[in-house]
């Protein structure tokens, strides 16, 4: 949480003024018992009605001044808290956007979304309440104690003792309560997981007729949650009665000692009443403080979670160096895109996903990549736009190592159609313009024609047709064709189709490949597939098995020399 306080920097004034105004309000409140004391001693004692009226006037004035300072404090606190959350949210979003594919794989998107929403809100509430109450409550507590000292040092010692004991009680409760609350949260997470799994797997669970077992599991977990909740509840159920007893015990002692002192003339009756009133103020304030601490704990937990996310270093950084421009003449003799002894590990401990890949591709060539599940096909193409960094070896695009290139410029030359066909909420045109912001309608139409999805666009009412979130209102095949069109809008130099025709029927798939082959601007095309029919017309086909290249050549060559390819081919027909 501490690290996040930098977002309050801009609001230094507010952060100082808010508690200060709150303190002012508290001071005015602390004067009230003194005024009451003098009403009793001077007004009532002397039968002076004018004095009583004056005193009550003072009380109302104190109230008004208190109100004004409180309102200013609330405004400052709100401004600082909202500003804090806004800055934090913006930076967090930027940070998440800078993470690499590998980072995303590791953290999981649903976690990141929760951090962005629920946790930031929690932190905002925490800051707001902190600024409002954290100075006020201790100030009232200690202020009441100090005021007690001004009345009578001896009696004030009771205040010191009570406050010390209270702090110990509250502190201990918190200490034991926080781990308990964490365990409750853990159980709740488990409940969430079970529920989600049962929703997602409803068909499988019913097919396996596992309903009863699932129910038992859930009930057991649910009982566990109840147990943890009650365990945590025992402690908090004790807190209020304990503080109540403590304060009242102190009041009783106070009255007794006060009575003795009044008898001997050391104190006045009004002063005893004032002491009693101060004690009551402490009680009220303590209850607020306890609530605040619970809230703050939640906020700190949220802050820590947010910080964990901030701590993730994007492992791919733009390390663009001016080492010559891509596209220098002479580069292309050795190939437009080259892999030199490339290997890739997704995690430090895991096996290699790719081992020692060598490949050279000329501009305008079409490369097929084929192989079994988990053979590393997608990994190969993900290295070209530098979604992952090669663990060993070099990936060279247009004569330069991708690690030395400006990432944005590099990716701008590539049109990628990922495996998972995702579209965004908005019009079809807006979705297509992800490929190229400045594309005009003719260019969009051309891309749509090439991707064989003119019918999809027409069915949705043209380019202004709305697409719902995640493209819900389209079928899998329709989505896939639109994602292909989106990549083509860019008129990319390099087009990567990562197994992106899997939901298309054979006829459409064929038409699409023909359109791409016939286009007039020359693209270097990578086609990742599991079907030999999709790659057999490629200039070169790379056959992968378990992360290694086991064949490289044309369809005919491979049928002759590469047993793996032959096997795939046979299984396809």
């Amino acid at each position, binding site marked *: 949480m501490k690290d996040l306080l930098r977002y309050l920097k801009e609001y230094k004034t507010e952060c100082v003024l808010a508690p200060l105004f709150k303190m002012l309000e508290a001071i005015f409140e602390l004067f009230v018992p003194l005024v009451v004391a003098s009403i009793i001693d001077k007004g009532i004692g002397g039968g002076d009605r004018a004095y009583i009226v004056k005193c009550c006037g003072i009380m109302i004035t104190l109230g008004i001044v208190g109100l004004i300072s409180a309102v200013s404090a609330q405004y400052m606190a709100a401004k600082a808290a909202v500003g804090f959350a806004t800055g934090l949210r913006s930076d967090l979003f930027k940070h998440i956007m800078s993470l690499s594919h590998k980072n995303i794989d590791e953290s999981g998107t649903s976690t990141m979304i929760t951090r*962005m929403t629920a946790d930031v809100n929690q932190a905002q509430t925490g800051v707001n309440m902190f600024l409002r109450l954290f100075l006020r409550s201790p100030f009232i507590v200690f202020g009441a104690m100090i005021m007690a000292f001004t009345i009578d040092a001896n009696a004030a010692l009771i205040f010191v003792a009570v406050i010390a004991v209270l702090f110990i009680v509250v502190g201990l409760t918190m200490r034991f309560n926080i781990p308990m609350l964490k365990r409750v949260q853990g159980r709740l997470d488990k409940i969430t997981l079970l529920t989600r799994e049962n929703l997602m797997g409803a068909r499988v669970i*019913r097919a396996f007729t596992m309903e009863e077992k699932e129910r038992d599991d859930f009930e057991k977990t649910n009982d566990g949650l109840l147990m943890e909740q009650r365990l945590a509840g025992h402690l908090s159920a004790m807190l209020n009665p304990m503080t109540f007893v403590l304060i009242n015990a102190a009041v009783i002692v106070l009255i007794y000692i006060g009575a003795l002192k009044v008898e001997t003339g050391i104190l006045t009756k009004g002063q005893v009443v004032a002491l009693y009133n101060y004690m009551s103020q402490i009680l009220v304030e303590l209850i607020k403080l306890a609530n605040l601490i619970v809230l703050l704990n939640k906020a700190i937990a949220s802050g820590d979670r947010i910080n964990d996310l901030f701590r993730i270093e994007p492992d791919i950084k733009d390390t663009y160096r001016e080492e010559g421009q891509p596209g220098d003449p002479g580069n292309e003799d050795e190939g437009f895109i080259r892999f030199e002894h490339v290997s890739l590990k997704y995690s430090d401990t895991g096996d290699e996903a790719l081992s020692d890949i060598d490949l050279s591709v000329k501009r305008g060539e079409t490369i097929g990549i084929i192989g079994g599940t988990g053979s590393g096909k997608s990994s190969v193409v993900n290295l070209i736009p530098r979604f992952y960094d090669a663990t060993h070896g070099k990936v060279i695009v247009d004569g330069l190592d991708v690690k030395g290139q400006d990432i944005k410029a590099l990716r701008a030359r590539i049109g990628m159609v990922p495996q998972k066909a995702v579209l965004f909420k908005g019009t079809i045109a807006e979705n297509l313009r992800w490929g190229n912001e400045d594309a005009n309608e003719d260019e969009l139409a051309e891309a749509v024609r090439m991707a064989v999805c003119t019918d999809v666009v027409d069915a949705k009412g043209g380019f202004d047709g709305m697409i719902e979130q995640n493209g819900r209102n389209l079928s899998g095949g329709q989505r896939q064709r639109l994602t292909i069109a989106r990549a083509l809008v860019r008129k990319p130099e390099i087009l990567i189709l990562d197994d992106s025709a899997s939901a298309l029927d054979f006829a459409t798939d064929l038409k699409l490949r023909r359109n791409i082959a016939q286009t007039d601007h020359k693209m270097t095309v990578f086609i990742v597939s599991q079907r030999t029919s999709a790659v057999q017309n490629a200039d070169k086909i790379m056959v992968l098995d378990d992360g290694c290249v086991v064949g490289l050549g044309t369809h005919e060559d491979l049928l002759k020399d590469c047993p793996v390819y032959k096997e795939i081919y046979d299984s396809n027909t």
Partner: protein
Amino acid sequence: MEKKTARKETINRIMSYIMRYKFCGAMSILCAVINVVSTLYVPILIGRAIDCIAYGSLDRGRLMSILVRAALSTIIAALSLWCMNESNNKLTYSIVRDVRNEAFCKLHVLPFEYLDSHPAGGILSRVIADADQFADGLLMGFSQLFTGVMTILITLGFMLMMNPLITLIVVFVTPLSLFVARFISKHTYDMFTVQSGIRGEQTELIDEMIGNEKIVKTFSYEEKAVKRFDEINGRLQSASLKALFFSSLTNPGTRFVNSVVYAFVALSGAFAVVTGGMSVGLLTSFLSYANQYTKPFNEISGVLTELQNAFACAGRVFELIDENEEKSDADLPVMMIDTSCDANAADKGHAAKNSGSVRCDGVCFSYDKEKKLIEDLNIDVKPGEHVAIVGPTGCGKTTMINLLMRFYDIDKGSITVDGRDIRRVTRKSLRHLYGMVLQDTWLRHGTIRDNIKMGRDIPDEEMIRAAKEVHSHSFIRRLKNGYDTVIGEEGGSLSQGQKQLLCITRIMLSLPPMLILDEATSSIDTRTEMKIQDAFLKMMEGRTSFIVAHRLSTVRNADLILVMKTGNIIEQGTHDELLAGRGFYYELYNSQFV
């Protein structure tokens, strides 16, 4: 009106839950009464004690007896408060547990019409978040609403006993506080609506951009996303500031009214003392009441909002619990199929050849009753036959599975298994007959072992043998902890193909008499698929099997091929017959090899 009765119903419903824990509820109320009375009695005693105090003439005996009574009162108040807290905790948490259990059980009896048409997130938030909010609200309601009202009433009673005139002053000034609170909350409501609208917009963007961040990166859309985000964020900032500031005015506002009340009580009280109408001690008691008296008002208005929210949440959970269930089949007989396909026979890979016939007679079905889908479907599958279902996307192949497994009920006609209408037997026993591998693989958080065994009591050796047979053993072995490797939700780090292999292994272990394979091999590469093919064939031998696949190679050996288009079976027959017919199948088949 309708809304009101709905709320009333919800409240009645909650009451019926509370009645399950009568003892706790009664304890809670009893303790609350004791607590309020004894708590409020303390200031009176203190006031009397103060009246004992006087310069030079202290009645120690009387003072001591009053203070002892105050101490006793304090202890009783504390004990009853503790007891009340405990009862409330038990009551609310138990109720929520019950509600949650019921909601969860509901998930297993909801018809798929409901599950398929409602996003999982919405249902999830009912079971989790709504139930939680309900618990919080209920707890707050129990611990604060009742005691709050009690405190106000008893305070008023005590005050009336002490001095009716000053009490009247208090009663007249109090509404001011309520008015201030009402005024503020009315105005902040609109601001909160604006805020939550913008917040929703922002969440949607976050959801899209972070949920699909890989795509965002692919198109270097990051900066634009940030720009869009910051624009919304700016709007959110100003809306939030307004909402937060105005809502936070409630406390200072009511506190101010409070201090006005306090001043008036002090004024009138002091006058009364001067004229001899009351004692200083009584005035002290009065003042401390005046301090406490307005507090419950603030709390109650807060609690009421909270309670309203809790009722709304409870209503949503109840709505889920009350959702129409699948028609009960408890009184129907269990579907038995020839006993020769029990576990032993299944092990050998041979099922009874004379059972597992499936007939569809004039079946009509559609999801949306306005749009026709399957109409007058007739098929006749003999025991042990392999049926392949092919056709372009969206042609209704998955619908067939929904009907065969009775995830959905047909509208007209009949489906029979071994001559028995599947609507006349329990769903469970029907589903027991099928082994199913779905297009969307489903794996849960847990070890690979748990995911394969699915709670069935199966020795490890058998599991490993099955895994070897479908070629999943080799990749499982290579995982960090082999079969004990914990995989995340929805399979986590496994590739789509690996996930499907696991699902196939799962079925391989049970081998029911009939199989349904829904594009089970669509993202397993063809080489692995070929290896699996052997295992599949062995598994399918003698078993009635339905296979949905894109790849025509996998269906060529089927005994019967159903070619579907827009919900109807337009052709059926063997591979050779269909090719000879030169129809849609012919076209589909050839497009693969052009």
